[in-house]
């Protein structure tokens, strides 16, 4: 499907060159290394193919994820790369255009094509993802429509009533609202920072503002890491309490009870590299809030509702064990 879209879009960018959308920080391997090393590179770098280059940086082969699976099945993962790599590598040149690139993908069905200069030296790699990213950058806008969103939005059970008090929640009347509309983990926390700033401006005690912000930060991060959709943060200021609701419209949690356990995580490696995904998100939310309810079903999004009492609690800075 992506191929069809790209095909239609390519007419608008006849001048787009491979050098503009290729990934320049390409990971390669020497022929003498073991397939086992390729497997580790793929896991750590989250890539599905690695070009093989000789001592002159010239491309002499390529190893794909499929080759690795075969090596694991055939029990020869300890063999050197050169023994099993695909030697007849189809490559692109930096000056090739989008049309040529797409025709290669269609013709060969490979997932990636190394880019080489006139001497055959490796200078980049192109995957479908790179093409798509390049086009989106050109288009200057990303529009994502999640059909599930409307469906879940109309489900009153999750989205219109307080999970804790069951009163109808008027989200339009929220004192603070924030749309978590990004999918980049690097941006997680913007909503929580803004909420903290908002609370401080409203003369909320600094210690309570911090508890709210930390718990919201974890909830926001969860939306970005796990939901695969966008979400909202709402905050309601009441006389004696602060209520925060974080909703998303994504994948949902299959078993909330297990997810609440400290150390349980479904986060992938690259999230853990960012300092999250240690299985402390939900426990942290519970630790810092006075009441917390989480409702979810697989495929139906997640709603977290937390209440923070304005009156002090015994252990102000640390959070209790809930």
């Amino acid at each position, binding site marked *: 499907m992506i191929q069809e879209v790209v095909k239609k879009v390519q007419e608008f960018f006849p001048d787009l060159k491979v050098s503009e959308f290729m990934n320049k920080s390409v990971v390669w391997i020497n022929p003498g290394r073991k397939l086992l090393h390729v497997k580790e590179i793929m896991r750590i770098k989250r890539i599905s193919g690695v070009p093989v280059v000789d001592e002159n940086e010239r491309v002499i082969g390529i190893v794909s994820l499929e080759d690795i699976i075969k090596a694991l099945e055939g029990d020869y993962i300890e063999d050197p790369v050169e023994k099993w790599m695909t030697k007849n590598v189809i490559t692109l040149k930096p000056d090739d255009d989008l049309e040529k690139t797409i025709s290669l993908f269609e013709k060969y069905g490979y997932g990636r094509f190394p880019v080489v200069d006139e001497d055959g030296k490796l200078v980049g790699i192109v995957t479908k993802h790179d093409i798509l990213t390049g086009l989106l950058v050109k288009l200057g806008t990303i529009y994502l429509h999640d059909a599930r969103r409307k469906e879940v939005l109309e489900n009153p059970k999750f989205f219109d009533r307080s999970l804790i008090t069951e009163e109808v929640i008027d989200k339009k009347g929220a004192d603070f609202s924030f749309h978590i509309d990004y999918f980049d983990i690097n941006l997680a*926390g913007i909503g929580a920072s803004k909420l*903290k700033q908002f609370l401080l401006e409203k003369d909320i005690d600094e210690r309570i503002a*911090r508890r709210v912000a*930390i718990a919201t930060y974890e909830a926001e991060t969860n939306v970005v890491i796990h939901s695969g959709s966008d979400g909202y943060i709402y905050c309601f200021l009441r006389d004696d309490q602060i209520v925060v609701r974080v909703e998303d419209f994504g994948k949902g949690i299959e078993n909330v009870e297990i997810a609440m356990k400290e150390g349980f995580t479904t986060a992938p490696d690259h999230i853990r590299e960012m*300092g999250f995904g240690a299985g402390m998100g939900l*426990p*942290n939310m519970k*630790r810092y809030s006075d009441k917390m309810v989480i409702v979810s079903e697989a495929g139906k999004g997640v709603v977290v509702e937390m209440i923070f009492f304005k009156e002090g609690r015994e252990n102000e800075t640390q959070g209790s064990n809930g």
Partner: protein
Amino acid sequence: MYLKEIVEKVGGRVLSGESKLDSVMVESAAASDLMSEVLAFAEPSMLLITGLVSPQVVRTAVVVGIPAILIVRHENVPEELVDLAKMNDLILVVTPLSMFETCGRLYMEGLKPVKRGKLS
């Protein structure tokens, strides 16, 4: 301990908040590469020691109210992180020392651990 002394003890390089080194003081520190762990036990007015250089480090500091971040085992950090630290008025220091050596030196100088709560 004033940040100025901390920078000296670890041979650090100041990337943001240079003007505040003489005025900002921390009594305790937490060292971790796991931001969720920092969120679980952090105290405001502490020093955050970490080897992580993602924007999450600054966001965590802002949310908790941490005034200064010490990045270990790095010669340099991404510019993006420096900009974010400046934008949020945080002190950002980098040292090539390991986490272990950094913590050892500062502990010897009397920097205290945070009062760690009990994990449930």
